[in-house]
């Protein structure tokens, strides 16, 4: 008969490594594949000596380990929230506290193991070369990283409705704050698919950063260059647009019985994308407000919002699958790009707004998810 530990390791640990095979392959390649085998040991010893000697480098390494730790926590919480894993609540909840924490400790540290191995070697090298403070910091930091999530998992077990905060705080917020429909999709993303929204935002920020970096290197600022970066940023949101459609189809059908005008539904759609794009608006403003006029910045923001709204409106054609959608999106980008190059930005914005409104008002009440026969 298999032990409880073995079964739990199969549910959590094995699944973690299977699901993250790609991630570990890339990591393995970066750590061991880019250096020739003869100098591999020296390379890693130098790397470890680097962060044992330098505090800034050490901080960077600790930040990366913390990110990995959060990835581990995210995975554990996701499993606990997943459909089909409800049996974990009554079973793990029946274990006594000491056994339960032992199980959480084994599970969390089994997936945190890669950091433990690397950090453990670094601590030994640090001790050998008398870097006691750095070695101590690494040891204490990793002990903390492998212990604090245990309390989080245990709390989740007895308060499964908690997504973000402590139970008291969340209930306090629930009593005082009513979620407006405009935030439903964001709640869905942050509570159920945090990795999806964070990845999209991170990559989008990188594209905009690269845009500003290239213009800075060339000692110029061109609004058209910025708009090209913005267009790429919008394209990186396509997955969120498709997700938005699926979310509306699956969960918000009940809202169709509410006496809400199509205009208000349209306004909600515009507001959702305005909110989603706020981080980019802030980033562009901070980087460009000294280099161009406020009207130019407004043009850029309107362009992004118009593109997002038009691309979302296209999904109100029931037969618009992902393949077709990408095709229409790319054609639109091609046309808009030439309009930007020709300084017809406002005409492009007006056209996009008019088209998205026409499509939305024509299709919204007729829309019904299409099921492939």
């Amino acid at each position: 008969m298999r032990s409880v530990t073995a079964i739990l390791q199969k549910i959590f640990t094995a699944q973690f490594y299977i699901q993250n095979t790609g991630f570990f392959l890339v990591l393995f390649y970066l750590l061991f594949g880019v250096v020739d085998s003869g100098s591999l040991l020296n390379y890693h010893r130098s790397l470890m000596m680097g962060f044992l000697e330098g505090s800034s480098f050490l901080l960077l390494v600790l930040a990366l380990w913390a990110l990995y730790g959060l990835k581990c926590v995210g995975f554990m919480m996701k499993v606990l929230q997943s459909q089909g894993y409800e049996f974990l609540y009554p079973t793990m909840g029946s274990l006594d506290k000491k056994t339960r924490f032992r199980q959480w400790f084994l599970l969390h540290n089994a997936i945190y193991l890669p950091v433990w191995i690397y950090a453990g070697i670094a601590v030994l090298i640090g001790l050998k070369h008398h870097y006691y403070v750095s070695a101590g910091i690494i040891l204490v930091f990793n002990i903390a990283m492998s212990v604090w999530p245990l309390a989080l998992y245990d709390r989740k077990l007895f308060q499964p409705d908690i997504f973000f905060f402590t139970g008291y705080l969340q209930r306090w917020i629930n009593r005082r704050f009513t979620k407006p429909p405009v935030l439903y999709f964001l709640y869905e993303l942050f509570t159920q698919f945090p990795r999806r929204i964070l990845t999209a935002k991170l990559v989008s920020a990188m594209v905009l950063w690269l845009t500003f970096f290239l213009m800075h290197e060339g000692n110029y600022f061109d609004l058209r260059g910025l708009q090209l970066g913005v267009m790429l940023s919008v394209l990186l949101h396509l997955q969120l647009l498709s997700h938005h459609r699926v979310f509306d189809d699956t969960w918000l059908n009940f809202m169709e019985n509410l006496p809400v005008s199509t205009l208000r539904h349209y306004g909600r759609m515009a507001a959702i994308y305005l909110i989603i794009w706020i981080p980019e608006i802030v980033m562009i403003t901070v980087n460009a407000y000294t280099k161009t006029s406020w009207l130019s910045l407004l043009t850029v923001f309107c362009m992004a919002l118009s593109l997002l709204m038009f691309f979302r409106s296209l999904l109100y054609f029931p037969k618009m699958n992902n393949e077709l959608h990408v095709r229409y999106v790319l054609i639109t980008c091609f046309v808009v790009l030439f309009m930007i190059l020709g300084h017809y930005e406002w005409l492009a914005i007006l056209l996009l707004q008019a088209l998205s409104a026409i499509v939305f008002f024509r299709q919204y009440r007729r829309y019904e998810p299409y099921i492939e026969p």
Partner: protein
Amino acid sequence: MPEEPVIALHAVKKNYQDAPVLDIPHLELRAGIYWLQGENGAGKTTCMKVMAGLIPFKGEIRLRGDVSSKDHPVQFRRLINYAEAEPFYPAFLTGRDLLELYLGTKGGDRRLITDIAERMGVHIFVNNPVSTYSSGMLKKLSLLLAFTGQPAVILLDEPLITIDTRTLAIMYDLVRTWSANGTTFLITSHQPLDPEEITLTGTLRITDKNITLN
């Protein structure tokens, strides 16, 4: 002078892809309580979803004679409420979020809804996310939401399933009281509705995609 129909369906057709599900040339119902019957898959839920404006269809439905599903989509939805057979909502929403949404859009007497919520026991869990609700709790919440606003018609899809006997008695009481005040009820149920609790105005039967009134 004959009483004006509360709900009238004209040439209502509903297809899923190419398969016809509903084809109702004409149906008029006067105020009252109706039991909508039909076998599994006959189209009862589809019919209710069509009436509630949840899914698009061909044809037209009129409420109180002049409110058209086509021409007055907002007013139409203000006059018709629907409680699903198996309700589900986004996991992060609380019962209170949904109540505020319904009261904010459909309107109605907040004190009355609070009173019904307390009678049903919904007030105990209303601040918790719906992901923590049992099917019975979800059903109670869905039934409560169906009584928001000032509807002319309330559609109750399988209201007898999953709720406890105490809530069942409250529901029968609500149907009786609201019906006496002029609200029309269309109820689907595979179990017979208790004749000692409510007096049916008529029985509707879905056969061959059409509805007939007995």
